[in-house]
């Protein structure tokens, strides 16, 4: 008999350069098949973001040497999870971060370039899930889940320390408030971890009726001061969209979704004042396919294309984002 198989995904809701969308990967793992049955789940999720569009205060800049700067950010999440019952679950998000980049920086005198790769363990997150409302029937289902957790400062935050040290050194020369950015890729973008303990919160609603499905997610990331008292800006996002099951059989399902994402990031705080080249509001649209095989295996793959990005200062913003994952329930 077909079990109400249902992938609930936040995969479209990737965050900006600083974070790794802890809830997205956790929820991918935890909520395949409704996230309702007790037992263990393990998931592997990948988020790749290409930052190669240079924008100044929300406007794409004409071609220049700044276009040579880029950042390819890849975060692979390993997510072991345990559902203690139908209503309560616990997940650990272990991210491995890989960032390939080329950027420019102010030197004395002139402008120098730097290219390379940063890789290693990112910031771990521990997330709890509570199913606040659950309604299942023969033709459909409806869930509301509450998520809360904490992100720990396990990733290397040396690049954040470098950002603060550079800002302090330039302040001493030019005075506070001067704009020092000569590249859309900044030191804070290269970090593996923020060095801070952050709060992670989310609410998700998921529904299915016969072959139709629709979901919506709200996530909030509460940042605190971390490495060298640098504080990443708080972030919240709203995402979701309708979908349809192309195949819906016992032991096999494939659905296609249209996802929309609204992502808002507050500016960071450095040396007690706003970092002028941080903060962004973005809207993405994109398709996503979700697959389940048997009672244990699920997979998803999607892409986000930016519709509008309003950023502050000089930043490289995403030109596209790819996300996918596989999950196995024991």
């Amino acid at each position, binding site marked *: 008999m077909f079990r109400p198989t249902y992938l609930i995904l936040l995969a479209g809701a990737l965050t900006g350069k600083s974070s790794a969308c802890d809830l997205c990967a956790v929820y991918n793992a935890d909520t395949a098949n409704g996230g309702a049955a007790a037992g263990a789940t393990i998931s592997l999720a990948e988020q790749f973001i290409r930052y190669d569009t240079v924008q100044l205060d929300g406007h794409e800049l*004409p071609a*220049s*040497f*700044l276009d040579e700067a880029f950042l390819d950010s890849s975060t692979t999440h390993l997510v072991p999870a345990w559902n203690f019952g139908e209503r309560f679950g616990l997940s650990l998000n272990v991210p491995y971060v890989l960032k390939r980049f080329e950027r420019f920086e102010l030197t004395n*005198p002139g402008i120098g370039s730097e290219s390379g790769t940063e890789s290693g363990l990112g910031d771990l997150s521990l997330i709890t899930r509570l199913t606040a409302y659950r309604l299942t029937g023969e033709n459909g289902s409806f869930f509301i889940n509450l998520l809360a957790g904490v992100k720990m400062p396990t990733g290397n935050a040396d690049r954040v320390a470098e950002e603060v040290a550079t800002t302090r050194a330039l302040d001493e020369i*030019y005075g506070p408030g001067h704009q020092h950015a000569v590249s859309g890729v900044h030191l804070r973008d290269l970090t593996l971890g923020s060095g801070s303990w952050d709060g992670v919160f989310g609410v998700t609603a998921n529904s299915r009726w016969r072959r139709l499905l629709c979901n919506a997610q709200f996530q909030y990331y509460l940042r605190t001061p971390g490495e060298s008292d640098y504080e990443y800006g708080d972030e919240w996002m709203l995402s979701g969209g309708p979908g349809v099951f192309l195949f819906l059989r016992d032991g096999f399902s494939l659905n296609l979704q249209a996802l929309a994402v609204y992502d808002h990031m507050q500016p960071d705080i450095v040396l007690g004042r706003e970092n002028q080249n941080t903060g962004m509001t973005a809207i993405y649209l994109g398709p996503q396919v979700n697959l389940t095989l048997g009672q244990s295996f699920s997979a998803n793959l999607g892409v986000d294309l930016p519709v509008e990005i309003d950023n502050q200062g000089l930043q490289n913003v995403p030109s596209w984002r790819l996300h996918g994952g596989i999950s196995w329930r024991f």
Partner: protein
Amino acid sequence: MKSVWLHAFAFMAENGKLPWNMRSDRPVRCTPLKVRLAVLGAIFALVVIARATVPHIYLFEPINPNLVAIHFEMDAFRSYTVQYTSSFIVTSNGITAVWTDLETVPTFPFNNHWVSTDTRSATARFYRLKVVP
């Protein structure tokens, strides 16, 4: 600028396009079309030129006993090179100098404020900006 408006009014009056309360029965002197176009072209050229900032080092700021900051504004899509010389040479053809590049700033796609720094090791230095194009 005043003459431009006079030409515009003359043209409008000629074609009966002036508002009723600005019309006059007095005859209006009409400038030939070629002259009008030449005036408008000259104004357009002046506006274009005026939009480009005249290269100008507007501030020398001692930062500490070892460094001096050199401030200037940059136009988009123009490359700026800060040059210095320690002395001028008087020749029969006039005054010359050997200029050395201190810093070449790449072409930015937006207007920018730039601050170059130089050491204060020399007794005296003269600076200039070389701008392309």
